[in-house]
């Protein structure tokens, strides 16, 4: 009785083991196949819910860099004529964000932003900039703020036709000089010379926005950068439209000035 019931139990246990193992093997195999399929599909186009990254390089299939998205520390150096120059300045110098590169891999714009405490208060800003081909910013939509002294607006600038690379090369030479007043002076002389020969700089042609004195302004300038039409509403609410000559003298103003000085000068 004991033996037969024990054998029965053994058979029953054996069959039960087999059923259990079959079911278990089926379940685990299915699960592993399922996971492998999902994992494999992910390996084709990886899918992330969220990623943390210090820098993303967007590249063409041949490796040409087209864009970086990065924190401040990992911002790339400007690339001019296919060569990197550690000379970044301005909002991009302090900020984080995106830098754009053209089909030839040279920098041609960016979208950067910054904001931090300084010894005297704070410094903040953001800018979307498009560079003229092989040159500097020609379209700039920006916000700049130094301790509540704010400017925000759209600036259009003409830039020299010459590439900015010659300037970058020379700037690197000066950068390697020992620090001191001699270096500062030589750098300033060099920059003035570069401006004179039209490889550095540029002139504002149009600005629309608000200025540092809390005025809202539309300014149109000639190709030498002299403002020739200005429409302003100043911080006190005074509105005017001015025509200016190349020397900066107001030649006509609206609304007409009621002052006697102005009308008497008109009579002559």
């Amino acid at each position: 009785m004991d033996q037969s019931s024990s054998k029965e139990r053994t058979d029953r246990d054996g069959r039960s083991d087999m059923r259990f193992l079959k079911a278990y093997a089926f379940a685990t195999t299915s699960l592993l196949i399922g996971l492998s399929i999902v994992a494999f599909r992910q390996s084709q186009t990886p899918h992330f819910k969220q990623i943390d990254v210090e820098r993303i390089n967007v590249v063409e299939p041949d490796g040409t860099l087209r864009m970086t998205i990065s924190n401040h520390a990992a911002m790339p150096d400007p690339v001019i004529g296919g060569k990197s120059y550690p000379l970044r300045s301005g909002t991009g110098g302090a900020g984080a964000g995106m830098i754009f590169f053209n089909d030839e891999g040279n920098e041609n714009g960016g979208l950067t932003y910054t904001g931090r405490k300084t010894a005297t208060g704070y410094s903040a800003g953001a800018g979307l900039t498009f560079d003229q081909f092989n040159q500097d910013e020609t379209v700039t939509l920006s916000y700049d703020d130094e301790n509540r002294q704010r400017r925000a607006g759209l600036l259009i600038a003409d830039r020299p036709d010459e590439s900015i690379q010659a300037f970058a090369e020379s700037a690197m030479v000066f950068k390697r000089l020992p620090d001191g007043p001699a270096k500062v002076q030589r750098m300033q002389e060099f920059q003035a010379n570069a401006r004179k020969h039209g490889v550095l700089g540029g002139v504002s042609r149009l600005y629309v926005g608000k200025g540092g004195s809390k005025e809202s302004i539309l300014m149109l300038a000639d190709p030498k950068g002299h403002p020739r039409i200005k429409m302003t509403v100043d911080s006190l609410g005074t509105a005017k439209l001015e025509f200016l000559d190349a020397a900066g003298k107001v030649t006509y103003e609206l609304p007409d000035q009621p002052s006697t000085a102005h009308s008497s000068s008109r009579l002559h």
Partner: protein
Amino acid sequence: MPDKSSSLSRFFGFRSYVATAATIAVGVSLLAFTKANQKPHFQEIDAERINIVEPDGTLRMVISGRDRSQGPMFKGKPFGYPGGTRAGIIFFNDEGTEDGGLTWNGKTVNGKYRAGAQLSFDQYNQDQIVTLQYADENGVRQQGLRIEDRANIPINELVDRMTAIRKMPNGPAKDSAMNTLVENKGDPIAAQRVFVGRDRSKTAVVNLSDALGKPRLRLMVDSAGAAKIEFLDKQGKVIRSISGDDGGR
């Protein structure tokens, strides 16, 4: 008792051995899988294209180089022209229809260059109506902000109708069909309303135009430095001009 204990030991011994091993295997792969699905941290990654998608897979943004860029999409379906032409960022609305972008280019071919960059926002189911742009054809350049009106015709339908007209034989019937489409019974398919910037003739200009896209008020400083404000009629004739030189008279 010995039977029971041997059966128990068999049970715990054999089944649990296999089961534990298999469970560990599954557990490890599950762990690896969920680990991959957690928020990964990278110092630096290279990518030819990044797709930003909603949880249901709807495309909301493509960040890419030129070659891997996305062509236009209307409600999740490609239309117009294939991808591979625009480096930068393309935006898509909640319905998977393209609604803007930030793109750039610049290349020298046979000693002549073509360069540009633009940020654009599209009207719903239509084309760009806010555009901040730099466009340069080997030194002939235009930079500025442009605001446009667009007709209430879905862009995919417009592209189909234009494609059909372009296939017609050249002649008056084709021209008339194109005019009818472009003018759209007084609601033009595209009309520039505002331009603020610097145009191809090197003039710094603010242009305000009517609903048909005709400039009616213009502030300008041309390449020679001449500054004036002009009011124009709908034929384009200057009806009042103000400048600094004539004291505004």
